[in-house]
C-alpha cells in the first residue's frame, strides 16, 4: 500500500538534518509572531465584552477552554523565537560508548535481528547490549551473532527503565545510547551526537525520531504527522531555551549525569521524568534535529490510543509529582516548558466541554455566549491566519521537509479521535489511578477497537440530535417561531457537524485498522542501502 516503492524507501534511509537558522528567517518569524499576538489582542478586545455573556458560569468555562488553546499557541510561538540548531561538532575521540536496547516477551525476533545488525554497523567504536527478559534462548543467539552483549535481566520492576538501571550497574561505559528495538540506527549515529559532550555540563543529547512505516495506514500517517513539528521547530525552540526533553528512544546519556539523579527515571513517562530531573540537577540538554535512525509508529488505532493513554497518564504523573517537587531548581523557561508539556493532554477535558456546547443548547436550551457566529469568525480569522502562516513558516525547520511538510489533517483527525483517551488519562491521574488493561490485538481481527467506541457514541448522539431537531422543527415548533430561530439552530448544528465530520477520520482509522494485515516492515529494510551522506 502507498509508497513502499524503492525510491520512497531510499529517500527515507538517508541521513538528514533540519535547516540552520539564518537571522533574516528568525526576524521574519518574529514579525509573524508579533502580528499574531496583535491579532490575539484584537480578538481578546472583542471576546471579553459583557454583552457576550449569556450564562456567566458557562461563559467562564467557554472562555477558559478557548483561551487555554490560544495561550498554548502563544507559548509555542515564543519558543519558536529561540529556535536554534547546535553547531556540528566532531565526535570526541576514544570514548567508551554503550548502546542499550531492550527486549520483552512477545516482541518479534526478526526485528532484533535487523536492529542489532544495524547497531553493529555503527562506525564509532561501541558495545551493544541487549537487555533481555524474554527467557527465550533465541534472543541470546541473535545478540551474540551480531556482536552484542546479552544481559539477562528478568523480574525487575519498572519495565524498560528498571532494566536500564540494572544494566548501568553491570557496565561502565561513559556514554549510553538508549535505543528502542524498533529503531534502526544509521552507521553515523554516534558520530553526530558525541561531540556535544565536549561541554562537561551536557547531560544528554537527543536526536529526532523518524519513522519508516507511515505509509502503512491512516493511523500510522496521522501519528507520524503529529510528531513532525515536535522533532523539528518545537524541540529546536526548546533547545534554544535549554528545555529540550528526552524522548526515551534515541537519547544518548552521560553516565555521570544519569547516576547523579539516581539512574533512569521510572514511570509511564520515564523519559520525561529523567529529563526534568537532569534539568533540575543543573545538566544541560542538547537537541540535534537530525535523522540518524528510523523506527515504527503504531499502525492500528488501538495500539496508537494505548500508547497515547500511557503517555497521557505518565505526563500527568510528571506534572503532579515531579514539577512541584523540582520547581525551585528549574529555570523560568524550563518551568514553562514542563507545564506546557505536562498539560498537553488536558485538551481531552477541554475538547469534551467544546463538544458538549451544541448538545447543551439543543437538549437543555443552555447557551454560554451571545456571540454572533459570523462576528466570531471575523474576529478569529486574523489569529487563525497568522497561526497557519507561522505553522507553515516554521516547517522550514522540519528534519525532512520534502516528506513532512503539510497541514497534517490526518494528525488533527487522529488527535481529535483521541480526546476520550486524553480525558481518561487526565481523570485517572487525578486520583493516581491505574491504567485499565485494554487488550490490543497483535493481528487484525476484523473488530473495531475499544477506543473507537466513544466516536461511535458521538456519531449516534449527533445523528439522534439531528433527528430530534428535525422532527421538533417539522412538527412541534410554532410557525411563528420557525423563521426567527432558524439561524441559531442551524448555526449550532453546523458547529456540532464540524466535530461530527472530525469523528469520521478516527472511524476510518479504526475501520482500516480492523482490516490491516500485520507485516514485518523491517524485513525489506536493506542496511547497506542506508546513506550517511547528508541529503539536501
Amino acid at each position: 500500500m502507498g509508497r513502499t516503492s524503492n525510491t520512497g524507501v531510499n529517500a527515507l534511509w538517508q541521513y538528514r538534518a533540519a535547516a540552520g537558522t539564518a537571522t533574516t528567517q528568525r526576524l521574519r518569524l518574529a514579525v509573524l509572531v508579533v502580528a499574531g499576538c496583535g491579532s490575539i489582542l484584537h480578538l481578546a478586545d472583542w471576546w471579553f465584552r459583557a454583552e457576550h455573556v449569556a450564562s456567566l458560569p458557562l461563559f467562564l468555562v467557554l472562555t477558559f477552554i478557548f483561551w487555554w488553546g490560544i495561550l498554548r499557541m502563544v507559548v509555542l510561538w515564543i519558543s519558536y523565537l529561540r529556535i536554534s540548531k547546535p553547531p556540528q561538532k566532531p565526535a570526541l575521540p576514544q570514548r567508551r560508548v554503550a548502546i542499550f536496547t531492550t527486549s520483552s516477551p512477545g516482541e518479534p525476533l526478526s526485528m532484533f535481528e535487523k536492529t542489532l545488525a544495524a547497531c553493529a554497523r555503527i562506525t564509532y567504536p561501541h558495545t551493544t547490549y541487549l537487555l533481555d527478559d524474554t527467557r527465550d534462548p533465541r534472543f541470546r543467539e541473535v545478540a551474540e551473532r551480531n556482536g552484542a552483549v546479552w544481559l539477562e535481566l528478568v523480574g525487575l520492576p519498572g519495565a524498560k527503565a528498571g532494566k536500564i538501571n540494572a544494566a548501568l550497574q553491570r557496565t561502565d561505559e561513559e556514554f549510553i545510547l538508549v535505543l528502542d528495538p524498533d529503531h534502526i540506527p544509521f552507521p553515523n549515529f554516534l558520530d553526530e551526537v558525541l561531540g556535544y559532550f565536549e561541554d562537561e555540563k551536557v547531560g544528554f543529547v537527543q536526536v529526532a525520531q523518524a519513522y519508516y512505516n507511515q505509509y502503512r495506514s491512516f493511523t500510522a500517517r496521522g501519528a507520524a504527522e503529529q510528531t513532525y513539528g515536535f522533532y523539528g521547530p518545537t524541540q529546536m525552540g526548546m533547545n534554544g531555551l535549554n528545555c529540550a526533553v528526552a524522548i526515551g528512544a534515541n537519547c544518548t546519556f552521560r553516565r555521570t549525569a544519569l547516576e547523579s539523579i539516581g539512574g533512569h527515571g521510572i514511570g509511564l513517562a520515564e523519559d520525561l521524568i529523567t529529563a526534568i530531573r537532569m534539568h533540575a540537577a543543573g545538566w544541560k540538554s542538547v537537541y540535534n534535529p537530525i535523522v540518524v535512525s528510523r523506527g515504527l509508529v503504531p499502525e492500528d488505532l488501538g495500539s496508537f490510543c494505548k500508547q497515547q493513554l500511557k503517555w497521557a497518564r505518565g505526563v500527568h504523573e510528571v506534572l503532579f509529582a515531579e514539577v512541584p517537587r523540582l520547581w525551585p531548581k528549574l529555570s523560568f523557561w524550563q518551568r514553562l516548558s514542563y507545564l506546557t508539556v505536562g498539560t498537553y493532554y488536558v485538551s481531552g477535558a477541554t475538547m469534551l466541554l467544546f463538544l458538549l456546547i451544541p448538545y447543551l443548547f439543543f437538549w437543555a436550551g443552555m447557551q454560554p455566549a451571545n456571540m454572533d457566529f459570523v462576528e466570531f469568525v471575523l474576529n478569529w480569522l486574523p489569529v487563525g491566519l497568522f497561526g497557519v502562516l507561522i505553522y507553515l513558516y516554521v516547517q522550514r525547520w522540519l528534519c525532512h521537509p520534502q516528506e513532512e511538510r503539510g497541514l497534517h489533517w490526518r494528525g488533527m483527525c487522529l488527535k481529535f479521535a483521541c480526546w476520550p483517551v486524553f480525558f481518561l488519562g487526565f481523570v485517572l491521574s487525578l486520583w493516581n489511578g491505574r491504567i485499565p488493561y485494554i487488550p490490543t490485538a497483535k493481528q487484525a481481527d476484523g473488530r473495531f477497537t475499544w477506543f473507537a467506541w466513544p466516536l461511535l457514541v458521538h456519531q449516534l448522539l449527533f445523528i439522534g440530535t439531528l433527528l430530534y431537531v428535525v422532527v421538533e422543527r417539522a412538527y412541534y415548533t410554532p410557525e411563528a417561531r420557525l423563521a426567527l430561530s432558524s439561524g441559531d439552530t442551524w448555526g449550532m448544528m453546523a458547529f456540532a457537524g464540524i466535530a461530527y465530520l472530525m469523528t469520521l477520520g478516527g472511524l476510518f482509522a479504526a475501520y482500516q485498522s480492523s482490516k490491516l494485515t500485520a507485516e514485518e516492515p523491517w524485513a525489506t529494510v536493506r542496511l547497506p542501502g542506508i546513506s550517511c551522506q547528508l541529503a539536501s
Partner: protein
Amino acid sequence: MKVLVYRTSAVLLVIVSGVLLSALLLYAGERSKGPLEDLALSVTSDVARFEKHLVGHDLRKSRSASLRWFDRYRTHQALLNAPDTILTGAYDNNTAESYESIVALEESLQVKLPIIQLYTAWGSKKDQVFPMLRAQAIQDLGSIPLITWEPWLNDFDRNEFPTKQPVERINEGGLKAIASGRYDAYIDKWAAAAKQFGAPFYLRFGHEMNDPYRYPWGPQNNDPADFIVAWRHVVSRFRQLGATNAIWIWSPHPAYRTYRQFYPGNEYVDWIGVTTLNYGTVAPWSEWYSFDEIFGASYAEFSLYGKPMMITEFGSLRVGGDRAAWFQQALSDLPEKYPVVKAVVFYNNTSDVTTTYKSLDWSFNADKQVLAATTRVLKSWRLHHAPTERLLRKKPLAAAPLAAPHSVGE
C-alpha cells in the same frame, strides 16, 4: 554600543513590522466585513426560507390560511393603498426569537392581525440593514410588515460616511445631509434589499418628525423644509431603484400642530400615520387624554389630504384613568366617526424607554378588561373582507410608470 544599537533596532523593526502587518490585516478585515456580513445575513434568511420550504407546514392549519382573505389585499398595492376595510395590526417588543406573542394576542382578541410592525434604525451595524429575515417571516405568516425606519445618524461608520461633523453633533442638520446624498450608499443598499424582498410593505420613515423633544430628526436639529427635501430624496431613490413595493407612511405627532409644515406632498406619500398614545398621568407633563382629544384635531385636517390614515401606535398607559374604557371609547365608533382611518396598529410594548427616564409598559395582553372590551368592539365593527371587483380591477399603483420627480434639494 554597536551591538546595543543593532539589537534594539532589530527588535523595534520586528515590532513595528508585526504591528503593521496585523493592522493591515485588520484593515482588510474591516473592509471586507460589510460584504461578509451581508453574505451571512443572506445565508441566514436563505436557510430560514429553505427550512420553511422543507417543513411545509399543513397549510390548512397555518396562520396564513386564516388570513387568506388578506392575500387579495397584500398582493394588490392599489387595495393596500385604499383598503375598503379596516386593517388591524400590532407591535410587540418580545419578538426577538418568535412571533408567538403576536399569535397569543390574536387569540385573546379573537381576530387575526394583518399588520405586524417592527422598528429599525439607520446605521452601519449589521442589524441596521433591511430586516430581510423578519420581513420574510411576517410575510410567511400571512401578514404584511410595517417597518418604522428611524434615521439615527450616530451608528454610521465614519470611514464609510466621512464627515467633519463631530460624532456628538452628527444629527444636527442631519436631514439636510440625507437630502444632499451623504447617506445614499446606505439608502440604496436598503432599497435594493427591499426590492429583493419583493412583496409590498409599509414603510414609515422618520416618524414624529415634528416633535422637538423626541428624535434627532426633529425640528430641534432641522428645518421643516429639510424634512420635506430629505423625504422626497429618499422616496425618489427607492423609485429610481425600482423598490416600488414600499408604501410610504408619513407619520407626524398629532400633538404639535406644526405638522402641516412637514408634509412632503401627495406625490410622495401613500398613507398618513398618526400616533395616539395616551400617557395618562405618568409624568408631570402628561395628563389623561381621551382618544378623541389626542386624535380629533389632526384627523379633521388630515382627512382632507385624500390619503388613507393609519393609527400607527394605538395604546394607553394604566395610570390616571380607566384603560378599558379608553380602548372601548376610542374604538367603538371609529369606523363611523373617522371613516378615513383604514388601519389600527396596537402598541403592545412592555418596555418603552424613548420618552421618560424609566421604562413604560404599554402592553395590554394581560389586561383582561382591556382585552374583553377590545374584542367586543372589534366584533361590532363587522368588517367585511371581500374587496369589491371595482378595486381589484384597478391597476396596482406600483406598476404604474412613475415620472420620478426629483426632489427639491437636487
